[in-house]
């Protein structure tokens, strides 16, 4: 009886610890910024940590919990970023209140990413494994390339859209909102570090709560054995689409935050490289390990910045460091070594020694 009460609170406790740590780090950063001790570079990275963290957590739901390899996560982020930024750009003079406008932009971005999540989720039901990876990869590239050619402008007649450069003719006084490869320019910079941290925490809590609930168990059951999951009456279709949709929604949210942190939003940023980078965060942090995703997102965002002094060799060294970290984290021999030389045990032994010495004295 006591076992399961402990179990429920164990999950809640680990959530509290994680959220508490994030808040502490956030406060520490605020103090450092207030005291003027944080470098300009670091300040710029703080928000990146948050939205990359959100992306890594949400992709982990697909890759780690549902067990389907997705290579198009940047596509969902891209949809969220463009729809959110489009909304903000259109409404900049209509809704004066920044809070309401940005909240609505987040909602619009998240919902449109969710819609695409459902669509891809339906496709996911038909294909598995490598084929799914190819489908999602294609999805990401299609989204990127469509937005690369898309021109949307507004003039006194209303909205006009065209594919390809120079095809859109606006009347005098009209403005271009999405300008093809140049993307969206002049998005209000509404994202702040505080908002990003709030959404990071929200993402973490929602996804970790989902995983530790009836729906999460159903999703993991599908991952472990689809046939057995069906045999105990789990609706495979429903839970696969659910997982994909939630994953896409948070990628979309991260996209909106990203878009409102920069001046110019270009679709070329959301290519294959971005999807792979998010996947690397997930793999390094541990497939299925939600907290790990956040930590590795932070480390792997910091790393290339701190390797800048290496100039041309930067990405080479980055790759080597990545391999070393991967081995240290996941090779069985290293796990064994870490267990034998854990900091916790060392601290415990030290405390014991000090205690003993004091007793003798």
């Amino acid at each position, binding site marked *: *009886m006591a*076992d*399961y009460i402990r*179990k*429920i609170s164990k999950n809640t406790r680990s959530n509290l610890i994680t959220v508490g740590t994030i808040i502490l780090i956030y406060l520490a950063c605020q103090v450092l910024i207030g005291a003027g001790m944080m470098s300009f570079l670091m300040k710029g990275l703080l928000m990146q940590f948050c939205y990359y963290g959100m992306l890594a957590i949400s992709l982990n739901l697909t890759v780690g919990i549902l067990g389907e390899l997705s290579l198009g996560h940047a596509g969902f982020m891209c949809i969220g970023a463009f729809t959110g930024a489009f909304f903000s750009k259109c409404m900049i003079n209509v809704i004066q209140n920044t809070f309401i406008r940005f909240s609505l932009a987040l909602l619009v971005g998240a919902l449109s990413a969710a819609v695409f999540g459902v669509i891809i989720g339906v496709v996911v039901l038909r294909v598995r494994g490598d084929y799914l990876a190819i489908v999602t990869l294609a999805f990401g590239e299609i989204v990127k390339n469509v937005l690369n050619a898309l021109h949307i402008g507004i003039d006194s007649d209303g909205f006009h859209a065209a594919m390809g450069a120079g095809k859109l003719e606006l009347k005098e006084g009209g403005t271009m909102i999405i300008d093809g490869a140049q993307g969206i320019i002049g998005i209000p910079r509404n994202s702040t570090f505080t908002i990003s941290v709030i959404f990071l925490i929200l993402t973490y809590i*929602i996804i970790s*709560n*989902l995983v*530790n*609930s*009836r*729906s*999460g*168990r*159903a999703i*993991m*059951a599908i*991952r*472990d*054995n689809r*046939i*057995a*999951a*069906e*045999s*105990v*009456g*789990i*609706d*495979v279709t429903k839970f696969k689409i*659910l997982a994909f949709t939630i994953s896409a929604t948070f990628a979309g949210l991260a996209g909106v935050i990203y878009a409102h942190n920069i001046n110019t939003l270009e679709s070329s940023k959301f290519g294959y490289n971005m999807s792979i980078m998010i996947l690397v965060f997930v793999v390094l942090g541990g497939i*299925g390990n939600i907290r790990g995703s956040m930590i590795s997102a932070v480390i792997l965002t910091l790393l290339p910045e701190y390797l800048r002094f290496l100039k041309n060799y930067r990405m080479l060294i980055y790759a080597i460091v990545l391999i070393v970290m991967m081995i240290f984290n996941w090779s069985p021999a290293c796990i064994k070594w870490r267990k034998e030389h854990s900091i916790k045990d060392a601290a415990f032994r030290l405390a014991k020694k000090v205690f003993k010495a004091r007793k003798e004295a």
Partner: protein
Amino acid sequence: MDMLCVKNLSISFGGLHAVDSFSITIKKGELYGLIGPNGAGKTTVFNLLTGVYKPDMGQIFLDGKNITGLSTIEINKAGIARTFQNIRLFKNMSVLDNVKCGLHNKYKYSSLAGIFRLPSYFKTEKMMNEEAYDILKVFDLDKEADTLASNLPYGKQRKLEIARALATGPKLLLLDEPAAGMNPAETEELMETIKLIREKYGVTILLIEHDMKLVAGICEKIFVLNFGIELANGLPQDVLNNPEVIKAYLGE
């Protein structure tokens, strides 16, 4: 009172008549054995009963309700649960969570209640845990509740699979070679467990088995299948002494 009534069930794969005119009637609470040489079509019968394959012909009635052609999920909801010949556990989940997956449709709350930890989450999870522990106790697995399913020894994995199937609250339990790979002591223990769950849960059981000691020991009736066709059907002593059956099993 008939729990399962199957009439002329048939399926062919290409030119192979895997199961041909399979008819069986199982009364409520009975323990029926399904035996036959390798490739006789025993597992195919299970797959037909659970909706994995759709029959070419024939009808299946569970407790008077026609369940022919329903999906696996709907058939499970209607009251048939099964285990698999090659164990299919949720390997990377704990023993407790495996059983809780079995309780998936018995205790429900919405995904939103789970995400936002609404009161219904705590209430339902508590009931789920209580029932899951009760089932695990029957199988003597409650001490391993937090172990990963893949870390259990083989015999216990077989037991956990039965526990998970039982958690779905079936009227009819299909066991596909429950004793496969077990040593005599484990088989003995399994026989006791099967008897126990029958008494405790009042479930009707149809089992496939090659271990004749187990079949003769606990089955009340036996059905012999050979090349997809009924060879014999009736009480154990009659069936096992039937010269046709001995011929099919041991050769001439």
